[in-house]
């Protein structure tokens, strides 16, 4: 803050709403009184010309009117006023007034009266020039070394310098490369003109050069070919400022301090006459005006600088010497000598405050205290507190702020999928391989049972299915009002979706009495799209790659009756076979055995069978429940077609690896591209350019590589998307088969599904493989583990590194195979909590982040030795509920893909713990993957320490641990050995499965 203030010695408020700027103020003995004392001349944009002779003593007597010597209303706006010897054969000072289209030179004469108010002044026009071009500013001086009188130079708005020698016009020149006018100054020492051009550089033009340059009366002439008899105008020198300038001043106090000063928008520049810089001062404020006024110390320049913080600063070269606060932002500042005061600072604001001041030398320390820092009114605060507390009490009693938990649903959402396909398809892709792509209309009815605000309805279907509109904004609804929206769903890709269900999410807020903005709530609903949307009936195929056989305990059903919409075209009239052809091309055939109660589904690809199998199972259930048969059972005898399943896993994994590789290659090429660019740039920047040495060719080639790679990566991404959908299809099928095989309950199937399909989407950062492996490993270690010890320790195995893309799928496959195997041996996916499992405190402590290296490899080893029955017993005894909870929360995260009823029920009473558990679990399971070479030494060390601590708990574990570490170090060897072991194991499992 400013400590010192400018003391007003004399001041005045000029005009009634007039406007003033930089050129509007000048001082000088304009009336040639001979005393050498200055008068203040002020012109305004409204055309008022005023002359003042400030007189501090008289002000108190109400005689402030005396200070005004003259006030004249001129016809035009006044841009600039200057005092100088503008009349030939006269040593007297005259007043030059610049109007937009006119330059007038006046004489000001005074006649003294008996008393002050008897003094009269007269303004007499000596000569005037009407200007052809609109003027911007002017400067004056002894151009061309003329002595005794001043010439004038006016810069026009379009860049012409017009020269006037008293009452005659000399010549006009256009500045080269002109865009907008900058400040203008004349340097008498070098007889040149200075301006700052739109190129943000200071340019110096010699008067001599200007005089002999091409006579240009139009701008075009100066820009085009120069006429004969004149030279093209070029600056004498230039200096790049890098910013626009507010003002230029060329003071001449003494020879030793001859310099040019330029006030930029952010910096102050001082240059020598030849354009070399003397110094530059960075300003920490926005300057508004400046004036070099004296050279107090030889070789230095003193200057005044006004800024937009109402400050007036005094600099000696770059040193701040004094500062004073003004009551306004000055637009122009001058130093004047008055009869009673020498060295007064005259400043003018844009709204006409004229102040003649001197520097105050008493510091002021007062600052306003903050309003809110004041003492509070305790009574008032107390009353407010009581009021608020009362409100809170009421609110908690009535429960009105929060939605009533037991209240009826505010809203019901009902989706109706039209039984027949749309007459005219809404699909974006109208046909695939000659097959027309159909669409089906879905109508959603929303019925409100209370007032609803800002309701939004979104539709989500599985890719590559698409809908015509997926967002609906509903108007505010009253009680009992209904809204209907409808849209069409269709296939929008050349592969079948993994699921034909669609989700409807309605988000809304229901206002309560105390919360008028409403409590945000969400409601979900789902609908099933018909199978006919993605496939058409076809003729049965005889030989296929994959076969699945489903057994039932009921006599065979007529398939054509079950699938009425598909039966129309089939040639097979006995209802024994039915074939589906997907729009994408794949065929799936369903055969019903005439003799046994078996059904066979066969197709060329494993994953494509899923939708058909699902549909079949669903329709069976419906069919038999309609018939009233309660004990309908369907089963799958196995073996589980894991090899087929692994094909889609491998396909997906390979594409992910490819994506990673493309990513790496792309970044590598991008680095190369930038490196070449850098080299090229240094070559081009060089003043003596070196040959390019085919760098340009290299640049082109790299560019093409980058583009090609990007295209390939994009293609890969599309394939990956498709592969993921296929993987999900086959995983769904696998889960279905597993549940049919082992007759899993609904809850168990839900756990399995959540385990094998943990993600709705996979990303480069977190993909299906690692998250699935993490989930499967957890199941294997918890409810499907062999011994209580394992189960206990597994709980301690929390924390660890993040999940990342594994090196290969061997481990995952092994774990999935093991999962199937253990399920086959009677392993139960149960909901019971492992809270029963006593976790030793010691181990609990280990559950800190950073965790223990998990057991993973050992899971396979010694598996066969274990007695499966024993295991089952144990599992039954100490069932794990945590798994269930974990899955639930995971599901919640996954946009609540499948809100199973069980999970919802479970959710109610679950404390915070399970959520923590999930996080820990994730970390822990990711450890499995993290045994790559990337492992930093630090990470490797930590598990070691942990392992040491664990030694006491289990010697066997210790052994495992060591194995583990060894493996981490020599992962190269491991890869090979593991592969072979997996094969062996797989075989074993197959045999086991066959036996089971």
């Amino acid at each position: 803050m400013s400590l010192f203030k400018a003391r007003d010695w004399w001041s005045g408020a000029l005009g009634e709403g007039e406007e003033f700027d930089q050129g509007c103020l000048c001082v000088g003995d304009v009336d040639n009184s001979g005393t050498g004392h200055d008068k203040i001349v002020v012109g305004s944009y409204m055309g008022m010309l005023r002359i003042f002779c400030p007189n501090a003593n008289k002000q108190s007597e109400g005689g402030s009117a005396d200070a005004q010597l003259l006030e004249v209303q001129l016809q035009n706006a006044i841009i600039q006023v200057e005092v100088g010897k503008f009349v030939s054969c006269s040593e007297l000072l005259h007043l030059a007034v610049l109007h937009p289209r006119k330059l007038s030179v006046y004489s000001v004469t005074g006649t003294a009266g008996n008393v002050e108010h008897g003094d009269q002044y007269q303004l007499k026009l000596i000569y005037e020039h009407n200007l052809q071009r609109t003027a911007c500013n002017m400067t004056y001086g002894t151009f061309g070394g003329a002595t005794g009188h001043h010439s004038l130079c006016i810069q026009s708005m379009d860049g012409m310098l017009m020269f006037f020698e008293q009452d005659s016009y000399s010549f006009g020149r256009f500045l080269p490369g002109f865009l907008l006018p900058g400040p203008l100054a004349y340097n008498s020492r070098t007889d040149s003109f200075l301006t700052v051009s739109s190129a943000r550089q200071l340019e110096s033009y010699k008067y001599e050069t200007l005089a002999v340059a091409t006579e240009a009366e139009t701008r075009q002439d100066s820009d085009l070919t120069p006429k004969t008899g004149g030279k093209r105008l070029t600056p004498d020198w230039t200096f790049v400022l890098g910013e626009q300038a507010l003002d230029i001043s060329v003071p001449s106090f003494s020879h030793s301090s001859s310099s040019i000063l330029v006030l930029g928008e952010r910096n102050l520049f001082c240059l020598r006459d030849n354009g070399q810089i003397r110094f530059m001062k960075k300003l920490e404020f926005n300057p508004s005006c400046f004036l070099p006024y004296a050279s107090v110390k030889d070789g230095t320049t003193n200057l005044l600088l006004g800024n937009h913080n109402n400050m007036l600063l005094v600099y000696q070269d770059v040193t701040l010497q004094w500062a004073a606060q003004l009551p306004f932002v000055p637009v122009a500042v001058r130093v004047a000598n008055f009869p009673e005061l020498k060295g007064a600072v005259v400043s003018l604001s844009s709204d006409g405050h004229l102040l003649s001041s001197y520097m105050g030398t008493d510091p002021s320390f007062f600052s306003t205290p903050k309003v809110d820092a004041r003492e509070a009114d305790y009574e008032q605060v107390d009353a407010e507190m009581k009021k608020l507390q009362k409100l809170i009490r009421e609110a908690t009693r009535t429960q009105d702020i929060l939605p009533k938990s037991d209240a009826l649903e505010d809203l019901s959402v009902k989706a109706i999928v039209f039984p027949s396909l749309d007459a005219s398809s809404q699909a974006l892709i109208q046909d695939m391989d000659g097959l027309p792509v159909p669409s089906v209309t879905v109508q959603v009815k929303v019925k409100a049972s209370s007032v609803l605000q800002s309701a939004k309805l979104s539709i989500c279907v599985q890719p590559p299915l698409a809908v015509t509109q997926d967002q609906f904004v509903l108007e505010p609804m009253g009680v009992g009002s209904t809204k209907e929206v409808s849209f069409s769903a269709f296939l929008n890709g050349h592969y079948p979706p993994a699921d034909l269900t669609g989700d409807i999410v309605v988000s809304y807020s229901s206002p309560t009495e105390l919360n008028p903005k409403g409590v945000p709530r969400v409601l979900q609903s789902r609908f099933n799209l018909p199978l006919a949307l993605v496939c058409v009936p076809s003729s049965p195929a005889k030989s296929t790659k994959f076969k699945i056989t489903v057994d039932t305990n009921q006599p065979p059903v007529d398939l054509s009756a079950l699938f009425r919409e598909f039966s129309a075209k089939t040639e097979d009239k006995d209802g024994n076979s039915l074939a589906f052809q997907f729009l994408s091309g794949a065929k799936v055939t369903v055969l019903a055995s005439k003799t046994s109660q078996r059904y066979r589904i066969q197709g060329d690809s494993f994953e494509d069978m899923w939708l058909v199998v699902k549909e079949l199972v669903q329709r069976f259930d419906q069919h038999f429940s309609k018939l009233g048969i309660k004990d309908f059972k369907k089963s799958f005898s196995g073996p589980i077609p894991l090899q087929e399943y692994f094909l889609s896993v491998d396909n997906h994994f390979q594409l992910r690896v490819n994506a990673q590789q493309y990513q790496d290659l792309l970044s590598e090429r991008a680095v190369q591209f930038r490196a070449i660019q850098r080299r090229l740039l240094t070559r081009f920047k060089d003043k003596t350019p070196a040959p390019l040495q085919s760098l340009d060719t290299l640049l082109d080639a790299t560019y093409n590589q980058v583009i090609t790679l990007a295209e390939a990566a994009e293609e890969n991404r599309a394939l990956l998307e498709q592969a993921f959908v296929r993987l999900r299809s086959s995983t769904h099928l696998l889960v279905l088969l597993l549940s049919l095989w082992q007759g899993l309950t609904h809850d168990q199937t839900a756990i399995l599904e959540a385990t094998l399909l943990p993600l709705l989407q996979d990303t480069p950062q977190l993909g299906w493989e690692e998250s699935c492996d993490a989930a499967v490993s957890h199941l294997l270690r918890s409810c499907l583990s062999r011994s209580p010890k394992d189960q206990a320790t597994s709980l301690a195995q929390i924390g660890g590194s993040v999940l990342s893309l594994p090196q290969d799928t061997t481990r995952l496959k092994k774990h999935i195979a093991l999962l199937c195997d253990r399920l086959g041996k009677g392993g139960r996916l149960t909901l019971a909590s492992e809270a029963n499992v006593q976790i030793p405190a010691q181990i609990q402590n280990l559950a800190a982040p950073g965790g223990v290296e998990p057991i993973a490899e050992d899971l396979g080893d010694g598996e066969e030795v274990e007695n499966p029955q024993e295991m089952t017993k144990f599992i039954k005894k100490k069932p794990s509920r945590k798994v269930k909870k974990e899955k639930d929360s995971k599901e919640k995260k996954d946009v609540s893909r499948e809100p199973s009823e069980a999970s919802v029920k479970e959710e109610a009473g679950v404390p915070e713990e399970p959520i923590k558990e999930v996080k820990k679990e994730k970390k822990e399971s990711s450890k499995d993957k993290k045994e790559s070479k990337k492992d930093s030494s630090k990470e490797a060390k930590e598990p070691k320490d942990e392992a040491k601590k664990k030694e006491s708990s289990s010697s066997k574990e210790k052994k495992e641990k060591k194995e583990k570490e060894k493996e981490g170090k020599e992962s190269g060897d491991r890869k090979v050995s593991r592969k072979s072991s997996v094969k062996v194991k797989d075989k074993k499992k197959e045999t086991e499965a066959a036996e089971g």
Partner: protein
Amino acid sequence: MAALDTLWEDRDVRFDITAQQMKTRPGEVLIDCLDSIEDTKGNNGDRGRLLVTNLRIIWHSLALPRVNLCEYNLIYLNSGHGHTEALYILTKSNNTRFEFIFTNLVIGSPRLFTSVIAVHRAYETSKMYRDLKLRAALIQNKQLRLLPREQVYDKINGVWNLSSDQGNLGTFFITNVRIVWHANMNESFNVSIPYLQISGGYVLGFKIDPVEKLQDALKEINSLHKVYSANPIFGVDYEMEEKPQPLEELTVEQPPDDVEIEPDEQTDAFTAYFADGNKQQDREAVFSDELGLAIERLKDGFTLQGLWEVVG
């Protein structure tokens, strides 16, 4: 000529004024009334009311009948300064500089001090109604440039201005607000005397021949001055969109005193409002060789450099 009390409302800063002085004078109107305003500098913590008339700003405390008064002449306004929304008023009265800071206690109140600033602007741009003006741009093409609400009642030619030895022949314009004289030979030589200023102090001499004509002119001026005094036009016109209640209703009721106590000595309430610490007047200006500019004379024992270094 004594019909009009000396106008002090717009040129003095007065403190602890009487209820009588708080009342509006003829021609003075209440323009705005702002509640919950704190006089931050003098009465920090007191809630008060700021009244804005076309001549002055009055602040009075709600709790205590203490009254501040401030004039419009020569003030600089600044609002929204620093960390609080405050109205800064810097003013000078009898060579003493005062600073007032008024803060709106209702944080974020949309109605800040816009009316004060607007009224001040209207005041500042209508000085021709109230101030003596010399050598101004009053005449254009031999015609008086009229102010809003001004009417010319008479134009008298052949009026001598006695301010110089030989005298200057000129013309009188007599209006409902002022008397204007200008020299016939030089339009720039003129004087504008509002009736408000006709009360002594500044003597200007004019002569009209013959004497009868002079008497007529005097009579006319006298009667116009009376009319003006009864209902002065200050020229500060400001239209508020919503009219506040009249000042009388808002004035704090004071029990009518039987005895009017004449204050023996000036109260020292004003000391709290000095713009610069405890200083009542600035020291005189002198030229500093060190700075090359005029400065306030330094106190004994101080140097410019020393002062600056302490600050820096």
